[in-house]
């Protein structure tokens, strides 16, 4: 508290100056008719301060607080002077705070957001309220609160009908004693509310008042009267808050206080260099910010830095250097001039430094960083309709892999958050988790469209999702990327047969031209769509939505890029009892394989073929074990652009006495084609599982079944098929591993596969009761250079029901 007292001994006049211990902060008065606290009107638009609070609390806006405000406080017909000036004044008087912007769970809370929330938190304070129209009362408040208590108080500074509250924190007073009167001239200093919400500090204004106080014979003050201009211009109500209270049931004062006190961002942990992993970060620059970008040699780093503080003030300087300190990039970042860098790592790690000349007003900025690593696996769809979504991440290799990450992306292809890692996966380590177990931020949930696993070396990444009662889907990407793909199934909007959705994803770091031709099942061109797809962007395919307002039931989409850039895609087709997912199918001319044909008694093996050519295309089905004997072949002649479904279990589903039993079926076309095979129950009930037709690129010397449910296997069965696509006999060692990644040598078996033959089995058949110890299984060809292919299939074992109502799988 500042105190200056100067006596003038020759007269009875003296002066004094006193100031409160804390200077109140200026804030905006948020008029009711604009509802800026809830709408951002008069401030920075959406999200408004209350919407940000909802976003932080509930993950979306408008939430309960915003809705409450619009219902209870917002009044478009209110007099224009009605607002929160009194609430601001109480807050500024009560809360000794210095406001800075901060990033809360990646939401930027600006100074205006915080002051706005704090203002609403004080709209129902328990407060002392006095009649300031009486000068003796006003005089008492100046002396009692400012001088004795060192505290500011709130005053409406004129007696008009309109109430404009301010916070008086200082006075300069001249007093003259004459007989039983004391004449006072006082200049009060007060914090103003005519400021932009983001204003930092105190805008000080002053007002002068004159009055005469009446004294009794003992010199005690018994009353008073205003004098001079103050007769008409003098304070009205005076307020001193005792306790913060709000009328809102959805605003938590302690949380508002925490927000108000918070500054800077969640990446700041002192004066150290912080690791920067893929994601989008909304950050505050209060001093130099330094980051380390850990990546591996050959990785592509995509880095964007934007300045967001809403000012044209001084630029933010960014410098990117490599391990040796060599400068890779330098930029002065202005509001309209962000930094965008794509760099291939030669000498990692990289170091990013952000600075500015003057830190008195913090800068708000956003970093988007994406890293393209040597191995990536995409989960293109995250169910948000109550389904569970579980993952198995397995390092099936012989050595540990460091820096494995799982990053979420939005529809625009921007990385949202790295929700797992970077972690080191030990050799043989398997991690199981659900999407809900990952630490995603609730307010980013809705925009989270897909997940990408990033690793320096191959790992296995399986995603199963479904309902608790019926239906299950599966995503395992494999190598399904290219420049020409097929989305094999579309449905008409509002179809009675179920729903279809899908997407095409630009896997490159450049914008691409996408050409999508929609065909009917018979090969009639139904729609042509040209779209530019930004780098990493996801283009959704939802019948009934732009640009697929009309779609042919049972049709398909031919997808091509003009540029030589990789795209991927997927589809999800569901009905009440079925859910089937597929990555978009590659279009090429090579031979394809169906690895297993079910016997016809219970199961259907259905093949869907698509001819992406404007000429007829004959597709030949040939059992590999038949060799040069083509008597069992099946020819399907597809018309131009035709799609056809063929059930082959009656044709090729031989029993064990047949010489071609367990023969893979080779498919060869006259021209390029695409296709997939599906298993489903012949009853027509139950779930179904579809797999892309296998091709040469899928064959390897070792394969992995990434997940076996082990001790929970009473509820599920896991089937595996392994085949020999080569012309030589192959011996395949089946190596089961336990949860510690240790090989269960005594449970291992060997398979001897003739050229073109396959073997199918249930995992539980390996090791009997000890099968529950199995975590994952490797299939290794003994002969160097030998190749195998395979698939796996998960199904449920319904209690007492001979029906598999959850079925999903993938090629290995």
């Amino acid at each position, binding site marked *: 508290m500042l105190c200056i007292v100067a006596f003038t001994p020759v007269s009875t006049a003296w002066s004094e100056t006193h100031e409160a211990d804390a200077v109140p902060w200026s804030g905006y008065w948020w008029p009711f008719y604009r509802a800026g606290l809830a709408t951002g009107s008069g401030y920075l638009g959406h999200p408004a301060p209350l919407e940000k609070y909802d976003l932080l609390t509930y993950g979306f806006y408008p939430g309960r607080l915003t809705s409450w405000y619009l219902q209870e406080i917002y009044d478009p017909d209110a007099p224009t002077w009605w607002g929160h000036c009194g609430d601001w004044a109480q807050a500024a008087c009560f809360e000794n705070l210095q406001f800075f912007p901060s990033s809360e769970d990646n939401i930027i809370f600006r100074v205006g957001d915080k002051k706005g929330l704090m203002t609403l938190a004080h709209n129902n304070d328990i407060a*002392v309220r006095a009649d300031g129209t009486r000068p003796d009362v006003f005089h008492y408040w100046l*002396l*009692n609160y400012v*001088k004795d208590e060192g505290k500011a108080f709130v005053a409406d500074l004129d007696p008009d009908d309109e109430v404009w509250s301010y916070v008086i924190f200082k006075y300069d007073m001249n007093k003259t004693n004459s007989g039983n009167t004391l004449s006072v001239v006082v200049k009060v200093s007060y914090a103003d509310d005519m400021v932009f919400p983001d204003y930092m500090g105190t805008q000080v204004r002053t007002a002068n008042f004159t009055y005469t106080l009446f004294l009794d014979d003992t010199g005690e003050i*018994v009353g008073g009267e205003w004098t001079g201009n103050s007769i008409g211009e003098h304070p009205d109500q005076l307020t001193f808050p005792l306790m913060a209270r709000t009328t809102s049931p959805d605003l938590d004062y302690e949380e508002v206080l925490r927000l108000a006190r918070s500054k800077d961002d969640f990446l700041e942990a002192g004066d150290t260099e912080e690791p920067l992993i893929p994601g989008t970060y909304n950050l505050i620059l209060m001093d130099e910010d330094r980051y380390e970008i850990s990546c591996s040699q050959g990785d592509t780093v995509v880095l964007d830095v934007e300045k967001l503080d809403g000012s044209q003030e001084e630029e933010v300087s960014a410098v990117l250097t490599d391990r040796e300190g060599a400068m890779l990039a330098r930029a002065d970042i202005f509001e309209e001039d962000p930094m965008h860098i794509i760099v291939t790592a030669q000498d990692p790690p990289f170091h990013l430094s952000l600075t500015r000349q003057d830190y008195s007003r913090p800068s708000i900025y956003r970093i988007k960083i994406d890293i393209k690593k040597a191995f990536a696996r995409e989960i293109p769809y995250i169910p948000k309709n109550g389904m569970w979504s579980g993952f198995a991440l397995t390092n099936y290799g012989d050595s540990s892999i460091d820096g494995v990450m799982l990053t979420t992306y939005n529809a625009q292809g921007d990385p949202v958050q790295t929700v797992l890692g970077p972690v080191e996966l030990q050799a043989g380590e398997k991690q199981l988790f659900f999407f809900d177990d990952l630490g995603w931020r609730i307010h980013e949930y809705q925009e989270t469209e897909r997940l990408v696993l990033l690793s320096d070396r191959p790992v296995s990444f399986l995603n199963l999702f479904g309902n608790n009662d019926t239906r299950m889907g599966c995503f395992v990407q494999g190598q399904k990327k290219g420049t020409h793909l097929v989305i094999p199934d579309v449905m008409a909007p509002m179809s009675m047969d179920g729903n279809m959705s899908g997407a095409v994803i630009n896997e490159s770091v450049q914008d691409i031209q996408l050409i999508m031709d929609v065909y009917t099942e018979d090969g009639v061109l139904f729609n042509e769509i040209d779209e530019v797809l930004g780098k990493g962007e996801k283009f959704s395919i939802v019948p009934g939505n732009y640009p697929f307002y009309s779609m042919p039931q049972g049709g398909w989409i031919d997808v091509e890029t003009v540029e030589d850039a990789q795209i991927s895609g997927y589809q999800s087709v569901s009905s009440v009892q079925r859910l089937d997912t597929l990555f978009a199918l590659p279009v090429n001319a090579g031979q394809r394989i169906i690895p297993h044909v079910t016997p016809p008694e219970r199961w259907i093996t259905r093949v869907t073929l698509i001819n992406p050519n404007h000429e007829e295309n004959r597709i030949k089905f040939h059992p590999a074990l038949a060799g040069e004997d083509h008597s069992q072949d099946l020819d399907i002649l597809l018309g131009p652009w035709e799609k056809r479904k063929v059930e082959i279990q009656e044709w090729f589903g031989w029993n064990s006495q047949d010489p071609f039993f367990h023969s893979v079926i080779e498919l060869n076309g006259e021209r390029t084609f695409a296709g997939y095979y599906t298993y489903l129950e012949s009853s027509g009930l139950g779930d179904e599982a579809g797999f892309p037709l296998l091709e040469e690129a899928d064959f390897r010397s070792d394969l992995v079944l990434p997940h076996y449910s082990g001790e929970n296997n009473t509820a599920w069965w896991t089937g595996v098929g392994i085949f020999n696509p080569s012309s030589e006999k192959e011996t395949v060692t089946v190596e089961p591993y336990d949860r510690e990644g240790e090989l269960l040598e005594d449970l291992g078996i060997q398979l001897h596969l003739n050229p073109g033959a396959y073997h199918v089995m249930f995992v539980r058949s390996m090791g009997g009761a000890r099968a529950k110890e199995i975590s994952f299984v490797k299939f290794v060809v003994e002969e160097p250079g030998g190749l195998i292919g395979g698939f796996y299939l998960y199904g449920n074992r319904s209690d007492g029901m001979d029906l598999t109502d959850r079925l999903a799988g993938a090629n290995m």
Partner: protein
Amino acid sequence: MLPPVAHGEAYHPEGALHILSEYRELRSGSTRKANWKVLPEDLDAHRILNFYLADGNEPLCKLMLFHEKDKLKIQWQARGVRKKTVFEEILVLPDFPVPCDILPIDMDENTGTFKTRREAGGRWFVTTYKVVRKEVGPQEAMGQGWIRAGVKAPGPFYFLNVLDSSGNMVLRQLWDDNGNWWLYEENVSGRRSWLVEGGE
């Protein structure tokens, strides 16, 4: 003149009290409510009254009542301020939100004049009040809604009215002749309060 009443236990509740206050904004007419609890405690010969919001855990106001030279002294301290002010015989705080006013309930006559003195910045500020005791019939007390359902108040009843030097009503408290706490109070700032529980 009404017979003098003996109120040895006035403002000395045996246990916790619960009070409902309603605040009417004089400009807008809107009302807000607050529930209070008063927790008494004895410290030597002093009676301490702690006024809390019903859901609060820190008192908004603390009174210490004691006698000095046969005069009732009331030490008052509000939350958030350092100063403790001692009043004599009467505590009237029309500006203060907590219903903690203490009136000279045992005054000998039905009318009395009292002064409150407050010090600030080295100056004393004096306010003079006239207190008038006035009987209230049970039908009026009940009919006006001054007595909450469930509160035992057999009567007879009377108001203690506090007037300023201009004769304007500043505060009034309704008492049951046998009560140790007022049943109802209202003041010039638009506050009305009811005893909800306790005070028998």
